[in-house]
């Protein structure tokens, strides 16, 4: 007992400790202030996985793309899209007006940069405040928390999005992305941001589009570089350099000598062709929205006299023409098929020629930033959790259009709108069937015991 300090002694010691802490804290702050910021500003990460994949697909084993070419690519992206602190969006043509463009600069400014607010009601750095920890500074879906989430956060750079009102292989509209931010994605770690004001949500949607176009342009430029690859090839050059090189090539051809390689693009050409191709698709998305027909009276109306028959028709379609049971399982538990991957995984596995059992190659890719591959399972429809939204309109769209990035295909053309509504109602009531006696659907060609 003698070893313990008395109360008054304890007080004295804690005062000293606190004082020392304050001094060092103060010194630390001062040091930070003097050195103008302890941490360097964040930078966009080059898409190392895509670079490695390009090397594996096109170059001799062990060869790498020279740093100069990769530096060219990053410089182009920096010149066109800025940095995480100073975001900008390239103009496709010199006289392009902002209202005709894909994003608004004021939205990018509000989402980019460090988190701060110097005016009541106005916040900046929205992306870093709400999104970066999962989606990453480059929108690669590999932020610090990503590894611990199932499903992984979205990698924007492929330009594929699951839950939208447009058909497969068409970008989402602004409203589609807004809705995902507003409602979140139930059953995943994506929260609902409906408490944010509309301006902030619009700002974040524009920033997502910005990261998507930037990331997709990086991939597309890399693909063009690799298409007719030469390690002396210049990806981007000034207009003068390109003209001079082309003139030299013509002269060499006339002389019968070996022509020096001309750069592929000037900055303007790369923006117009590569960035422009993606932006055109995004601007056109709103013209491709799938029109969901007005739902019949019996939809979401269990007391309607036709309801039971329609649900039974949905059950029939589920296991026959709709071919849903094939993947979702005879009882809708999602146990029909278990070993496929989503497109974001297949992009660096299957498309790079890496098999699921080649663990060394997978390890290499994970070290470069890919997330450890996980199988994608068909949805367990008995849980009543619909990631894309549980309104009847949402489920209609999932069935009609399929889900981009997943093995879920678009519904057979032979299914009429009424058929799809039957499937919607059947799917919606599945969670309410008794689970201990799940209905034996039975694929027509399988034995009931399977």
């Amino acid at each position, binding site marked *: 007992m003698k070893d313990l300090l008395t109360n008054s002694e304890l007080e004295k010691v804690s005062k000293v400790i606190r004082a020392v802490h304050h001094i060092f804290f103060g010194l630390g702050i001062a040091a930070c202030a003097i050195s103008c910021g302890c941490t360097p500003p964040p930078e966009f990460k080059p898409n190392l996985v895509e670079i490695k994949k390009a090397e*594996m*697909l*096109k170059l001799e084993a062990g060869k790498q793309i020279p740093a100069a070419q990769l530096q060219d690519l990053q410089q182009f992206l920096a010149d066109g899209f800025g940095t995480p602190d100073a975001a900008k969006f390239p103009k496709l043509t010199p006289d392009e007006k902002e209202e005709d463009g894909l994003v608004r600069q004021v939205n990018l400014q509000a989402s980019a940069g460090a988190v701060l607010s110097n005016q009541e009601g106005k916040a900046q750095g929205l992306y870093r405040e709400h999104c970066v920890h999962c989606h990453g500074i480059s929108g690669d879906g590999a932020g610090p928390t990503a590894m611990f989430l199932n499903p992984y956060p979205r990698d924007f750079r492929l330009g594929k999005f699951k839950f939208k009102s447009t058909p*497969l*292989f068409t970008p989402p509209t602004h409203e589609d992305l807004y809705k995902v931010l507003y409602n979140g994605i139930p059953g995943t770690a994506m929260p609902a941001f409906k408490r944010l004001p509309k301006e902030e949500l619009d700002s974040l949607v524009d920033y997502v589009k910005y990261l998507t176009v930037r990331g997709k342009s990086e991939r597309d430029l890399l693909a*063009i570089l690799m*298409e*007719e690859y030469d390690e002396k090839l210049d990806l981007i050059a000034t207009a003068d350099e390109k003209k001079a090189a082309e003139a030299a090539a013509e002269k060499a051809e006339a002389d019968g000598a070996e022509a020096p390689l001309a750069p*592929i693009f000037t900055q303007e050409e790369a923006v117009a062709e590569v960035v422009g191709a993606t932006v055109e698709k995004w601007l056109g998305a709103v013209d491709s929205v799938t029109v969901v027909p007005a739902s019949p009276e019996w939809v979401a109306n269990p007391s309607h006299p036709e309801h039971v028959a329609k649900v039974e028709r949905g059950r029939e379609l589920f296991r*026959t*023409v*709709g*071919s849903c049971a*094939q*993947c979702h399982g005879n009882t809708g538990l999602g146990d*029909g*098929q278990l*070993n*496929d991957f989503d497109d974001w995984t297949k992009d660096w596995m*299957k*498309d*790079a*020629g890496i098999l699921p059992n080649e663990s060394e190659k997978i390890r290499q890719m994970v070290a470069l930033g890919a997330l450890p591959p996980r199988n994608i399972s068909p949805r367990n429809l008995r849980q009543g959790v619909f990631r894309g939204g549980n309104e009847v309109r949402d489920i209609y769209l999932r069935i009609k259009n*399929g889900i981009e990035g997943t*093995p*879920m*295909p*678009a*519904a*057979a*053309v*032979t299914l009429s709108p009424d058929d799809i509504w039957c499937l919607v109602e059947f799917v919606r009531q599945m969670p309410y069937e008794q689970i201990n006696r799940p209905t034996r659907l039975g*694929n*027509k*060609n*399988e*034995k009931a015991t*399977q």
Partner: protein
Amino acid sequence: MRFGNAILAGLLLSTFSASALFAEGWGDFKGKIVVKGTVPAPSPIDPDKDKQFCGKHKLVEESLVVGKDGGLQNCVVLLFRSRTVKQEPKVHPSYAEAAKKNPVLDNKGCRFEPHVMTMTTAQKLKVTNSDAVGHNANVQSLGNPNNPQIPPGGAVELDMKKSDNLPAAVVCGAHPWMKAVVLVRDEPYTAVTNANGEFEIKNLPDGEWIFAFWHERGGKTKQGGYLTALKAGDKDYLDKAGQVKITVKDGQVVDAGVLSIESKDLIP
């Protein structure tokens, strides 16, 4: 899409104009590709989905199909095309009839038939399902992606309006071993080698054309790519990039003869 249609319309118009027809010359390009060395027998596929139905058919891996005398089947002979190399040949009027028919890709016995095919942007791809189980056709064409479900006994016609530089895979999501290869081009000057490894492309406009040979076991990975090691006798038939420039003259046949490739040069 509009651009491609305009090109095709322009080409067809120009071929139908009398003066163009008589002023043009047309020739053929043909050859035969064989594989030298031992070729492993195709490995069997154990279907793990819809086993009751798909297990009835003896399915094998089809990326390397070699005939009795070494003929390499399913090699796509195509005009090399990239961002910088365009090659837009005039189309001979004999192709006009074929352009009106829609080629069929059938899901039969849990495999795609044919395994490799080519088509033009003037045609629609009719995907049919002759099986009693559902399939979907995930068309991974860069210009014409699509992924419709096709119920048993059903069919769907897909617009394929954009010309692709390279052949694309078509896979079934429900039965992942199922794979087909489709090449969509504006021009009909493509061919797929038959069971004997033979190909023939008729009525190319006279002039110089750069051809390449694509195969599922070409390139550097299992994704497929250009064959680069084709030999005519002892000499390399292709340049480093896997291309050959042929000169087509009116009324003549460019006969590449028998082109051989060592089995070790194909991706295992």
